[in-house]
């Protein structure tokens, strides 16, 4: 079994390496000179030369890639072009903010999605099920900024319960901090829960079709007991897998949500870096997000292997 897990870990490292290639190649697909493209037509030759020196554009791409990768592995993320600062300094606080947002969202979304998925799977085709499937279909269809705009209009403007912008600087109390975090978290939760609940429901319904569940139904076990005592344990593997997979969706969710609420997180920093075409900063942020994404998928797969004996034997 550990051989399979190890093999999956190895695959994860290879994936990460491929992603680093892709992220780095992003700068190389530029037709012509990177420095000129970044600065635009009107740039002075001196400025272009400065960028060229900073990015070491006189050296071949393979060498630059190798340098970049080794620095990355040593934790040296390079220097931002626009701010002329060490990137690791720029992102440390931002990274923490994004982590706060993501983990609070996960803490809220996971139990909520489980409850919704379970309630829906209890009676497939029933009233609760239809309510859950239709509402989650709506939620997963709409863009995050629509959810955000709706929540702001309802909670910040009409009810005036919550502030619409999150500064994350000085707060008098934890309560005040929570209050200002509420709307970003609610938005993210809403968009993540939709996927998670649907996939939880599907995973449980899948288990519910097995013969031993039919047996339980036939001998008259109450429906709630069947789902909670019989089906859930065998669905733990797929459900945990679903949760880890959906936490990976947070990566794309935070990009929009941080922009809507002007939240000082890593995703907002990255979006700003993209519009300023600050390539070293874009690369660093992209690597952090992709690592998180790959990590979640890796965890999902490893948990699936641990939970399902059939996946444990090497093929």
């Amino acid at each position: 079994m550990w051989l399979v897990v190890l093999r999956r870990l190895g695959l994860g490292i290879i994936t990460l390496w491929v992603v680093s290639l892709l992220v780095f190649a992003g700068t190389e697909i530029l037709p012509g000179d990177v420095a000129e493209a970044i600065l635009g037509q009107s740039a002075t030759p001196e400025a272009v030369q400065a960028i060229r020196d900073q990015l070491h554009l006189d050296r071949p791409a393979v060498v630059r890639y190798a340098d970049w990768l080794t620095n990355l592995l040593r934790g040296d993320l390079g220097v931002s072009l626009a701010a002329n600062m060490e990137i690791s300094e720029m992102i440390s606080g931002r990274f923490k903010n994004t982590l706060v947002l993501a983990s609070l969202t996960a803490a809220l979304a996971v139990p909520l999605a489980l409850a919704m998925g379970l309630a829906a799977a209890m009676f497939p085709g029933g009233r609760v099920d239809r309510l859950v499937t239709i509402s989650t279909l709506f939620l997963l269809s709409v863009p995050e900024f629509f959810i955000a705009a709706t929540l702001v209009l309802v909670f910040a403007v009409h009810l005036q319960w919550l502030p619409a912008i999150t500064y994350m600087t000085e707060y008098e109390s934890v309560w005040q901090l929570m209050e200002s975090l509420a709307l970003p978290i609610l938005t993210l939760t809403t968009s993540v829960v939709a996927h998670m609940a649907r996939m939880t429901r599907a995973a449980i319904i899948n288990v519910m079709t097995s013969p031993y569940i039919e047996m339980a139904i036939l001998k008259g076990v109450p429906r709630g007991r069947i789902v909670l005592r019989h089906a859930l344990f065998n669905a733990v593997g797929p459900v945990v897998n679903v949760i880890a997979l959906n936490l990976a969706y947070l990566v794309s969710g935070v990009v929009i949500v941080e922009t809507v609420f002007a939240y000082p997180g890593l995703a907002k920093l990255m979006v700003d870096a993209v519009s300023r075409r600050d390539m070293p900063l874009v690369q660093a942020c992209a690597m952090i997000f992709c690592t998180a994404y790959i990590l979640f998928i890796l965890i999902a797969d490893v948990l699936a292997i641990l939970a399902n004996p059939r996946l444990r034997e090497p093929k």
Partner: protein
Amino acid sequence: MSEASNDATQEISLNSAGARPLFQLSLMGKVGAGILLFWIIVALVGPYVAPFHPADFASDDSFGPVSAKYLLGTDYIGRDILSRLLHGARLTMALSFTATVLAFVVGISLGFTAALAGGWVDMVISRIYDAFLSMPTIMLGLVVIAALGSSIPVLIITAGLIYSCGLYRIARALAIEIKVMDFVEAARARGERLPWIISREILPNAVIPLVSEFGLRLVFSILFISGLSFLGLGVQPPTADWGVMVRENLGGLVYGSSAAFVPAAAIASLTIGINLIVDDFSAQRGQEIAEEMI
């Protein structure tokens, strides 16, 4: 001779007897089709019925309220929201539709090629796609736009290539499945060539799964492109695009202006409409809606 013609008539009558509609829409599906039809009509005629030019500073009010003259109010610099919404429909829908068509053409042709050619061709194409799928699509989009800058061709090609990944996998799997079926074997044995086998034997059998795929990819493309426009990295202002409209009017939201909400709701209704049809379609094929929204 007579036997052959007999066969032919029998086949025709069989076809017409079995000619029931591909699928019947349920109530929700009909609602979705209605919404989609509405937006298609808006995209076609919207620019001609819009009361103002989308770039006109029609009013002195920024975030003006809803009134008889400005049916949906005005935006942050006093432009008529209804006019911008009507104009934006065409761009927003055309961009994502083109990207989806591109995704289809690229994904399906590569998928079928990989499945039929097999061997190293299959391996190379599959590994390249695996590499792209190992990144969240929004990250891929951001890196490409950081490098190339944003323009409409870049948006369409990026979205098209990203969403061709899913189609590639589906098309490849379908083709591999169908490849071993008797009628394809028969065509091969007759000495038919690859393009013929794809277009006349495999494609017709893959049409139904691919149609609902089309709807799904269309939703992804709409969300992806309008998301980038919302981030300021897609369609550039002052062009009237729904994602751009949400972005530029976001500041008015806290004052209770619906200027940002209206275009966001337009996108939401469009994507919900398409997904209702897709959901209906896949439910009848006993499938869950695919869940790979990244």
